[in-house]
């Protein structure tokens, strides 16, 4: 089976800075694929190129055979995107956020309403239906972002640091959801700098640093290769990316 997502020689320059410096990876159908790296590694930049929010500086990335360079709209119809920065519409309530967002995918109102109610149930948002976004806690905002990402019944889910800044309870809840979606066969790209999260959720992962892939494999393979099976993925990560602090 051909891969669902394929990045080849993907690059992004911000002026002088090579934020993404020629990376290649493939994501298979139904797989949860991790993009692991310290802050500033280039995870979000990669995600933004995949979701057609940023033009690529070089190389290509395709989704179901469609290239971001030539068919961004076709790609955007089948992606569900949960961005790192909360960009819910502050002018609308919880319910209205879902309804208005569904319009962008040509979903008719009655259907949008049905799907919104389903997602509200699933993500435990019902007592907040009419609340303005600013009243929601961080965990609720992330849950709403996740619900929003699913409103168009995507074929591919993109989660950019879905649990950063959340308390352990909210984090666990998001993990449950990701696991559930995986068992439903949804292909997922997950970025994180929480190693335990990658270890728990990802079938395969790449570790990137300074815009380059420095290691890849299944969590077990990486632990075997670098630590002879003794230790956890976090030790592998620190061994590969070094212990110095990242400022952003």
């Amino acid at each position: 089976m051909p891969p669902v997502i394929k990045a080849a020689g993907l690059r992004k320059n911000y002026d002088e800075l090579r934020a993404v410096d020629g990376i290649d990876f493939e994501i298979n159908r139904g797989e949860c694929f991790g993009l692991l790296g310290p802050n500033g590694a280039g995870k979000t930049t990669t995600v933004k190129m995949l979701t057609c929010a940023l033009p690529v500086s070089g190389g290509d990335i395709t989704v179901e055979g469609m290239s971001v360079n030539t068919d961004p709209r076709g790609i955007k119809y089948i992606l569900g995107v949960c961005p790192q920065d909360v960009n819910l519409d502050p002018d609308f309530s919880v319910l209205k956020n879902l309804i208005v967002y569904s319009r962008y995918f040509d979903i008719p109102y009655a259907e949008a309403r049905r799907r919104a109610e389903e997602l509200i149930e699933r993500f435990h948002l019902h007592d907040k239906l009419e609340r303005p976004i600013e009243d929601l806690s961080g965990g609720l905002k992330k849950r709403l972002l996740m619900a929003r990402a699913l409103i168009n019944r995507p074929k591919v889910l993109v989660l950019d640091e879905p649990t950063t800044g959340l308390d352990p309870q909210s984090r666990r809840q998001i993990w449950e959801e990701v696991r559930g979606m995986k068992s439903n066969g949804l292909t997922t790209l997950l970025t994180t700098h929480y190693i335990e999260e990658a270890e728990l959720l990802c079938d395969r992962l790449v570790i990137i640093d300074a815009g380059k892939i420095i290691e890849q494999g299944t969590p077990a393979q990486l632990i075997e290769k670098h630590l002879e099976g003794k230790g956890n993925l976090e030790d592998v990560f620190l061994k590969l990316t070094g212990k110095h602090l990242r400022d952003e």
Partner: protein
Amino acid sequence: MNNPCLLKNISYRAWYMWRRNVDVSLVTWKTNVLPPLLEPVLYILAFGIGLGAYVQQISYAGQAYNYIAFMAPGMVAVGIMFHSTFDTMYGAFVRLRYQKTFDAIITTPLSAEDILAGEILSGATKGTFAGAAILLIITLFGLAAYPSSLVILPLAALAGVMFASFGLYFAALAPYIDNLNLPIFLFINPMFLFSGTFFPLDGMPVWVRFAANLLPLTHLVNLTRAATFNRLHAGLLWDLLYIMVLTAVMACIAIRKMKTRLIK
């Protein structure tokens, strides 16, 4: 995505952006409806009745008019300008920089051009609504002739697109929200005062008239005044042409410029 042709990337989806902005306006409808209805009443009281007590008659195209009647169509034009320019200038700036609204929508099937065309259309809608509201008020004061005044409605939509495009362009140029004071000071306020809104340009020195004729508002005022006075004539087609050309040019420039801020 990098298609240089603007029109090719604009689709029916621009209406989804328009609907989003209209939905927001409906949530806060009181603050959107009252100003265009109350502002002209204030102007009529201050300028019409206050100033009108000193300047009773004013000559326009060889005929004498009440000062209030002279000023009323200027207010309609100014209302269209203010409401559509400010809607995109501040609204789009806030949605771009603070609310990250565009960041969320750009990953849906809307293109950057769809989003920005939708912004211009909703700004134009606000301007048209304001123009219609002010027209209603001056009609109640008996200051607009009919049916000629009805041409103001499609005209407001056209000029609304033009001014909303200016607003979007200014928003695209400004690094910080405070920078938006500059176009207000250099462009909006001079137009407000010197476009034949409050006094006729006929008696002015040649260079003043020349400068005023570069300002888009002057041409809109020419048209709205001829409409409320029931004095429409073929010569006004030049004003219309000027507005149409500037509208097309500004819409393209504004979308192109703002797109570079939306996707870097």
